[in-house]
């Protein structure tokens, strides 16, 4: 438990991706089986551990301490698991040295073998025998709220990084392909990564296959290509998914390989084919039901849920707009050309339930100019651009340059005013590099700037120097790590902000939320009075979603 607890402590406070990878690789290299496998499962969200209710933890801690002292402590720390890990008086018992703490694998096995009446005693005993950081890790695992900013994909990247060098170097794509066929504590996987064993053979083929990705179209890319070699499709504003179905096992994966089956029973239960299909998950009606495809903000009502209620499914019905076919039954057809695969896909989708599946249509075009016209003025507001795919391209995992392109609609742009700045992390810890920006809105006290978003990239290092200097020279207030900067109609810093999408939001005071905002340009040539107004943003939403 010690190694895993130390890893959690460090990961929570390490903001950079590379820093996290270093810590993960170090953990996987130095921690023995089967502990590292359970650690991996916990990080990747694949650990099945008997859960403990916060109410039970509270009872246990109050058995041994005054409720008022506990309340003072909880008020100060603010997190139940952390409070208990700190106030638990393990020190009164024998001093726990690092080598005699229960191992992570022991903790997992013990918890999972308990009967219902044994949980209380076992949790108390484990808390007694772990040090504070081990108690914290255990409580986070047992209450199912790890939240440490590590995705399953990052954990898999660390696995790829720990392998090798040379012949035993493994690619993350191979690991992702294996992933859903393996179970904790992954001993055959580690043996293979360390070059001690052959690649694990999977019992079930209903697994995730790494997806083929497209490159954005850049200046000059298309001129070199013959339009006759390529097919085009609309790029819908949903999320990329993979449906995998074999012998009664039906799964839905996100593009990074996270299993999202539980959140979309409406789609999964409608699967009546065998094989692996690639497509866009959307909300609304399919082409074949003649109901409109709905916006990304409607789709968001269905995302990041473990389970879903019938009411939500009814209000936000999900479907898949299929565009590629990787396996037909258990036949691997990835080496076939795109149009060949698509013909096969057509037959399968024809026979699939019409309200849950349709086929992504091809957009006919003769030259790039015509396609550009279509891209700029698409027939549906939920289209965010076009996909361009070589007609004979095989399905190859990863992002190869050449076979597939995405050509997105131009981003939105507004001029906003810098309101607050916060220091960055790591390399940027001495720079104010996270900026909250606002636009004008009419209030009872006249025009005021209301915050509409936050951006922390898009600028060059030289521009960051300029931004940082402005913040330091024009701070008017401080709130912890945040500085408020001067912003009046005639003095302030105007930022041109680019973003990919915009939606209504009840969470933000301004009522709007942007997707992927970034600082496109510094507009030192403009005064804050020239910046955009909130009405401009709400008009963008109405264009897309209709009136509220």
């Amino acid at each position, binding site marked *: 438990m010690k190694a895993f607890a130390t890893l959690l402590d460090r990961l929570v406070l390490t*903001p950079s991706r590379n820093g996290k990878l270093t810590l993960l690789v170090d953990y996987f290299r130095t921690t023995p089986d089967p502990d590292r496998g359970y650690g991996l499962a916990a990080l990747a969200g694949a650990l099945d551990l008997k859960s403990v209710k916060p109410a039970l933890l509270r009872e246990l801690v109050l058995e041994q301490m005054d409720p008022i002292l506990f309340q003072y402590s909880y008020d100060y720390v603010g997190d139940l698991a952390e409070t208990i890990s700190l106030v638990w008086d393990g020190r009164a018992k024998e001093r726990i040295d690092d080598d005699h703490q229960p191992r992570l694998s022991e903790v997992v096995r013990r918890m999972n073998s308990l009967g219902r009446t044994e949980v209380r005693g076992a949790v108390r005993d484990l808390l007694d025998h772990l040090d504070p950081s081990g108690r914290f890790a255990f409580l986070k695992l047992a209450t199912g709220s790890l939240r440490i900013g590590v995705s399953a994909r990052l954990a898999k990247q660390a696995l790829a990084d720990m392998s090798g060098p040379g012949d035993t170097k493994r690619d993350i794509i191979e690991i992702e392909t294996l992933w859903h066929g393996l179970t904790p504590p992954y001993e055959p996987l580690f043996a293979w990564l360390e070059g001690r064993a052959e690649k694990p053979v999977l019992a079930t083929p209903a697994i995730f296959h790494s997806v083929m990705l497209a490159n954005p179209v850049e200046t000059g890319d298309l001129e070199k290509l013959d339009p006759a070699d390529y097919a085009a499709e609309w790029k819908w504003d949903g999320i990329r998914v993979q449906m995998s179905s074999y012998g009664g096992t039906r799964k839905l994966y996100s593009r990074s390989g996270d299993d999202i089956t539980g959140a979309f029973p409406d789609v999964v239960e409608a699967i009546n084919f065998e094989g692996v299909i690639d497509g866009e998950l959307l909300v609304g009606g399919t082409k074949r039901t003649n109901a409109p495809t709905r916006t990304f903000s409607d789709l968001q009502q269905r995302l990041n849920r473990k389970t879903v209620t019938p009411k939500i499914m009814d209000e936000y019905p999900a479907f898949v707009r299929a565009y590629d076919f990787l396996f037909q039954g258990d036949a691997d057809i990835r080496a076939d050309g795109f149009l060949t695969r698509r013909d096969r896909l057509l037959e399968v989708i024809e026979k699939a339930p019409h309200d849950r599946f349709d086929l992504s249509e091809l957009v006919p075009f003769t030259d790039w100019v015509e396609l550009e016209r279509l891209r700029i003025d698409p027939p549906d507001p939920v289209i965010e651009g076009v996909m361009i795919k070589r007609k004979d391209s095989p399905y190859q995992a990863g992002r190869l340059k050449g076979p597939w392109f995405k050509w997105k609609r131009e981003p939105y742009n507004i001029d906003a005013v810098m309101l607050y700045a916060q220091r960055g992390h*790591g390399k940027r810890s001495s720079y104010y590099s996270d900026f909250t920006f606002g636009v004008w809105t009419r209030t009872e006290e006249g025009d005021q700037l209301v915050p509409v978003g936050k951006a922390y990239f898009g600028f060059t290092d030289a521009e960051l120097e300029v931004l940082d200097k402005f913040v330091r020279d024009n701070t008017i207030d401080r709130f*912890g790590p945040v500085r408020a900067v001067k912003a009046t109609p005639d003095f302030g810093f105007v930022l041109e902000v680019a973003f990919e999408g915009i939606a209504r939001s009840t969470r933000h005071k301004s009522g709007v939320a942007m997707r992927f905002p970034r600082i496109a340009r510094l507009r030192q040539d403009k005064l804050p009075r020239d910046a955009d107004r909130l009405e401009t943003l709400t008009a963008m939403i109405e264009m897309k979603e209709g009136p509220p």
Partner: protein
Amino acid sequence: MKPEALLHPTPAGLFCPIGNFYVDPVRPVGHALITHGHSDHARAGHGSVLATRQTLDIMRIRYGEDFTGSEQAAGWGEEIVIDGVKVMFKPAGHVLGSAQILIEKDGLRIVVSGDYKRGVDPTCAPFEPIPCDVFITEATFGLPVFHHPDPKTEIEKLFTSLEQFPERSHLVGAYALGKAQRVIRLIRDGGYSEPIYIHGALARLCDYYQSQGIELGDIRPATIEKSKPAEFAGAVVVGPPSAFQDRWARRFNEPLISFASGWMMVRQRAKQGGVELPLVVSDHCDWPELLMTIEEIAPQQVWVTHGREEALVRWCELKGIPARPLHLVGYEDEGD
């Protein structure tokens, strides 16, 4: 005599009307007794100061020659009589020169502990329990959540991180008086013999510690010798935490921010401060040490000066020990 007649809180600090002196006053007064050199306890501008030799030296380093009208050095355990009130300085184990002050009149004994700790610290004399009627304690870490781990294992975390991130400059935040020197000493005792780079704000105090026989090894100014970030790859740099948010920190290579403080016990505190590597090293008592000290001294009454008074008073009540919070203002509990 009631204890309050011998010593009671006033807006300027704890006041002894019979001896006409204050202890650690927060504003300029005629006669001041100072427990230790931290700036919230030792301020400039008093008419006269009675403190240990080392505390006086530290005040001179920090405030200049004219930090007080006149000064008097108190030896450890030396009995000094002020208008019929006996006072005596005993080690508090907090920082170099830090003292508890015993104030005694007609058999009534009050001990002002100042800031103190019970853990081992090679950079100052260890705390000595003094039997007394009223024990006045701090409560900076007076909550059951605070259990300071062994500082040796905390410093091991720094060494582990240096191995994991050999390219990054490790910036260890530590307050200039006491903590910085203790951390450097802990790093040395852990077997690290590379040069340690220090911020300018630490230089004179580090020199003073060395002159008092506390070995800190090869310490160099971080400002002069090297100019390119790459030259600081893998270096250990010690400085006041505030400097790390400043442009000063840009000279270092992919700085990894560490902070040596008792506050690092709470993850959210570390996170808010942008600290990647918290080291729980404190110069104050943790909760068990506060309780242990009160039980060991077994005073008639406990007065709690600053910090989380309510929790420590609550514990005393549960134990049947009369206790009251003094609500003294002006002592920052951040300084650890």
